[in-house]
């Protein structure tokens, strides 16, 4: 078994969830802020 390898895969699932949450959070952030600013009141 190689070093770092997570045989059960739970770490990968958690890491993916974190990545997904952070990425979608940042996308939502960019869309809301960018969209609101570009909308021009």
């Amino acid at each position: 078994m190689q070093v770092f390898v997570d045989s059960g895969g739970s770490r990968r699932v958690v890491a993916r969830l974190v990545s997904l949450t952070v990425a979608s959070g940042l996308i939502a952030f960019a869309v809301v802020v960018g969209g609101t600013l570009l909308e021009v009141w």
Partner: protein
Amino acid sequence: MRRAPRLHWISILLGLLVLMSVVSFHAYTAIRPEPVQHAREHRELPERTLALAFHGGPDPKWTPRLLNALKESGVKATFFVVGTQVTRNPEVTRRIADEGHQIAVDGFRAEGDWVDPHNLAFAQAALADVLGAHTRLVGAPVEVDSGDRDHQDIGTLVKMSLREQRGVVRLHDDGSIGADIARELAKAPGYRFVTVTGDRLVEATAAERFTGAVTAWSQRNGGVVLMLLGTAIAIAALLGLLRTLMQLGLAHTDRRLRREGEQEPPPWIAPPVSVVVPAYNEALNIAATVRSVAANNHCAEVEVIVVDDGSADGTGDRAEELNLPGVRVIRQANQGKPAALNTGIRAARHDVLVLLDGDTIFEPGTIGELVQPFADAEVGAVSGNAKVGNRRGLLGRWQHLEYCAGSNLDRQILHALRCIPTVPGAIGAFRRAALTDVGGVSDDTLAEDTDLTMAVTRAGWRVAYRQQAKAWTEAPSTVRGLFRQRYRWSYGTFQSMWKHRAALLEKGPMGRFGLLYLLVFHLLLPLLAPMMDLYVLYGFLVADAPLALLVWTVFLLLQTASAGYALRLDGESLKPLWAYPLQQIVYRQLMYAVVIQSLITAFHGTQLRWMSVRRTGLLTEVPGGTVHVT
């Protein structure tokens, strides 16, 4: 193999974009340009009716004084606010609104800059943050200038303000005169005071308030972010400088000691040597590799064992067809490089083993040079000098420069510190006893050479570097191939560091210097260094472009000088140095990406397989090469 994780790149790129936006926005708000006047349509007011329009605020000192004066006089005015001032003075802004005055937008950084839609959006965002509302009144209509920017005499100002006996009067609340003139105008007999329009504030949506909070936070805290960025850059710059100084200093010392040693060289030794060549799908290069080894001028027996690790391209056949004396081919089902190496080591008859990849070309004197450090009984392994064989094209030149200025110079430093962490798979020699001590080659990591070297050092053996023992290796010829190779190296190095982390608590040099060196210069520095690129980009785009250019040029000159010195130490031509500045733009960032990707993969715990590099057989171009692929 599971697919390497990728999603994090979206987060990283967006995160960097947000970071850049925050510091850029902060820099944007820090500058207050000259006011500009853009009058909107004429606002018709009845005879003896005035609308007092205050510009340039809110101001923390003068606007409250003005508000007091207006309150005493019972006059309602219109405040054409500037967005950055709203964020700086939220309490004053709220007081203006609370006391029933009209709030309008005049701009974001300066009076009248609302004509730029971005400034208007930023100003409205500032209002949304402070008041939870935005305004419909944007930009002042045609105004009667009170002259308060040019005159100080109250009598003159009142006369100028009343000269049309009606209309919107342009005043300012960012100076002391605003309150005085308002008090005097309020006393003018027979005049009625109104706001510019009857529009009231409109409640902001949640998105508007959130956006306002973000822009306000960026304006207030962008400086802190910039300072943190600056700290990271300073650490990266210091580390980079420290590494360069260590490289130059230690490499110089190492070379001096070696020269001194050459004046009274130890007796030349010539032990019999077993050469092990693990090969998987190396049909294009294996013949050249085996021929080059067989053509050695070592003064003792040299046996060559090619271990064909289940190749599908006839690698074993190509080696056998050569029919060279002393060359054996062992075939096995594909089990990976460590297993192939162990097979070769078990089959080897001699106590000194030279291990090389199936894409490497030896010079005739390489084996003889490589085994010389074994004259010292404490030496358990020797690293040779791996050089890029295919140097044509930008990518080849870049890798050649990196091998000389990075890897080999690093190896000289670490040789001086007695903690070389990697005897490269391309060219290394081991004492059988050292290999036996560590139980052979392990498949715990993707960088079996680093893992093996660390294990040998921890077992108490010394690892030496023999610069004169040169091997020419085929470097990846595509960016994708290079990324895959470095990804494996970097991930494998992290695996080895983690596997041997206990060395940090041990007495040997691997923990004291080797692991720390790798941790600082192969992990921390590549993680911090992108900040420098980001800062230079920020400097060019937002801040002081000439200063950014100067910093970047000085940094580049230092690096180029260091690379030039490394080339000289290695006896190489300085010609490829012209490609070095370009390396800073693409190649360096690729190397950062490799480190980040490796680190993320480690967190994910993904099982990566050996990623082979596509071979081209370009080793026929080896400088001075006498060996040809047949």
